[in-house]
């Protein structure tokens, strides 16, 4: 069952894509220098502080990072659904060549669920308990497409089948509480996919699920991504999930991207101390039972970001320079960029570690 061959194929495919970076036109999503801040009573929280993300067509792009790093806020910024004291204060979000920042509420409504859709972590609470799941999914169609009720139902049932919901016809009339967690998440995915969006944002879609169900859902997402033209933005804090299905990975820390690279590149040639820390913290199967590596300290409070590199207080390699000014994203070649002074020298070059 284990097919290293298959893994190799996937790797090839990703390598190909990485080579193709020049194809700017094919970019489904281009976020440039996005800044989303929360204006709270205690001060301004720069939850997303100059993030640039690019997602080519038909790719699964992962964002990882510890809790509170701004992953979800980035995602919600794309849909412009950042909640109350939060506001996009700068940057641009181009979806398929269309600028989203500054769009009117009405225009955004036409994009949500239509061109960009989203699934959340908790499939139970993300579905309205008082309506049947069928109704909730068909709503996503009827709001964007001129279709009749009957036709919408038809499409929903098909979508249900496509996401592997057994007895799709019957499930159409089920209420969320009558479904199991895995089925609910499938319904959410059906809802996200039913308008064939250009981009699907999945914010920790499997965190609340058991491993066996998680595997099913990840597989399903991969398959959907391959079959349709939808790009996926997968938010997670699980390196395993990243390794499992992502093509390209962004590592975020305290509102900034720390490292970005194609998945194989990232795991094979991990550069940023933070990323290294994250990977090393995971207990390795091979390891003898010694102490685990861990990043000391914790994510800083965004209200009081340290001077210089925001990771410097926790960084083993921190240099005096790190406490002085913020590093930029340095390009290390192979589509690999790192925000760390250690790689300043690599700027423009294609050197390995």
């Amino acid at each position, binding site marked *: 069952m284990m097919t290293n061959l298959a893994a190799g194929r996937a790797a090839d495919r990703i390598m190909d894509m990485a080579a193709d970076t020049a194809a700017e036109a094919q970019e489904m999503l281009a976020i440039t220098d996005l800044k989303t801040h929360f204006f709270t009573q205690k001060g301004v929280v720069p939850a997303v502080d100059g993030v640039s993300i690019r997602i080519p067509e038909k790719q699964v792009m992962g964002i990882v990072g510890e809790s509170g790093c701004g992953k979800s806020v980035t995602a919600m910024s794309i849909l412009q659904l950042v909640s109350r004291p939060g506001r996009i204060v700068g940057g641009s979000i181009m979806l398929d060549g269309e600028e989203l920042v500054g769009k009117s509420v009405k225009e955004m409504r036409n994009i949500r669920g239509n061109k960009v859709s989203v699934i959340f972590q908790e499939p139970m609470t993300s579905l309205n308990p008082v309506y049947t799941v069928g109704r909730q999914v068909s709503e996503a169609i009827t709001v964007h497409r001129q279709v009749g009720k009957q036709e919408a139902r038809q499409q929903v049932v098909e979508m249900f089948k496509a996401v592997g919901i057994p007895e799709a016809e019957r499930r159409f009339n089920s209420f969320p509480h009558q479904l199991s967690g895995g089925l609910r998440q499938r319904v959410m995915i059906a809802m996200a996919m039913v308008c064939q969006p250009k981009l699907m944002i999945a914010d920790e879609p499997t965190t609340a699920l058991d491993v066996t169900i998680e595997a099913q859902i990840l597989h399903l997402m991969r398959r959907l991504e391959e079959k349709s033209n939808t790009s996926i933005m997968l938010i997670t804090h699980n390196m395993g999930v990243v390794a499992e299905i992502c093509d390209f990975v962004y590592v975020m820390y305290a509102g900034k991207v720390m490292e970005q690279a194609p998945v194989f590149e990232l795991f094979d040639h991990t550069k940023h101390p933070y990323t290294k820390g994250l990977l090393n913290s995971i207990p390795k199967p091979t390891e003898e039972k010694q*102490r685990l590596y861990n*990043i*000391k*300290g914790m994510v800083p*409070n965004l209200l*009081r970001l340290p001077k210089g590199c925001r990771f410097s*207080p926790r960084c083993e390699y921190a240099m005096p320079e790190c406490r002085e000014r913020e590093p930029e994203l340095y390009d290390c070649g192979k589509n690999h960029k790192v925000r760390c002074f250690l790689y300043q020298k690599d700027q423009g070059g294609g050197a390995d570690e």
Partner: protein
Amino acid sequence: MQNSDILILNDQNLPPDLGLPPAEDIDAELLDNETMGDRIKTMLRKNKLAAASFVVIVLMCLAAAFAPFLTPYEPNKTSLKDRLAPPSREHILGCDELGRDHFTRLLYGTRVSVMIGLFPTSVAMIIGTVLGLFAGFYGGKIDFVIMRLADVVLAFPSLLLAMVVSYTLKGGIISIFLALAAVKWARTARVIRAQTLSMKEKEFVEAARSLGVKKSTIMFRHILPNCLPNLIVLLTLNIPESILDEASLSFLGIGAQPPSTSWGLMVFRCKPFLFEYPWLAIAPGVAILVFVLAFNFLGDGVRDALDPYLKD
């Protein structure tokens, strides 16, 4: 009672690297470290209406307490020459049908309202809290009995039950006390029971059980303090209600008994003069409205402020 089982540790026993975060990282100021009192204070600073209400309540309570010093008149002294005198310098709110200074009576009436607002409510809430705690914590038969009792009480319209009780006890302030206390415990008991039930499932309670902490300690030390926000909110609900209920009972003639007075009774007594001497009936009505409204505004503010605590 030194226990030899306990290993005495010293610094050498500390594991080498615990990944102890640098002290600066734990920044208490920036974490959510507001206590309940802080939140209420902040709310009062922000919410002008609530702050004003608070001031009004304090002033009215003071006025009630110091009534004899605030007026040269006695509340029950009639003076036929001053019958229905209109407001003037000597009589700020004029005099009633028997020439008694209306303002003075209003002040003394405040005492009744303040007392009714505070005492029976507190007594009822203490009873309700204890019963609710027991019902929620022990469950089973105790719960069944207490809750059915609460059902019974809640099935009566509260005003009606208060009427019946205060009627049985032949009217008067004391019977209103008892009547209101008899009625109001039930809601508190329900809320506290529900809260206790949810607290009981909380892991910190289970932790206490696993430590072998006694049941009574768990109830009163772990669960009760966590019901505090609910209790405060209930208090802000119950006080104005009690004041209104007393006013209604007095208005119906089974509350405060003449010659002592209360706002409700004053409205009732001055009602006949509404047309020619409207201020007489309006003043106590306004007093009730302002007092109750102030409690409600303050209560709303407090509820908003305590909102995060209420969801546990």
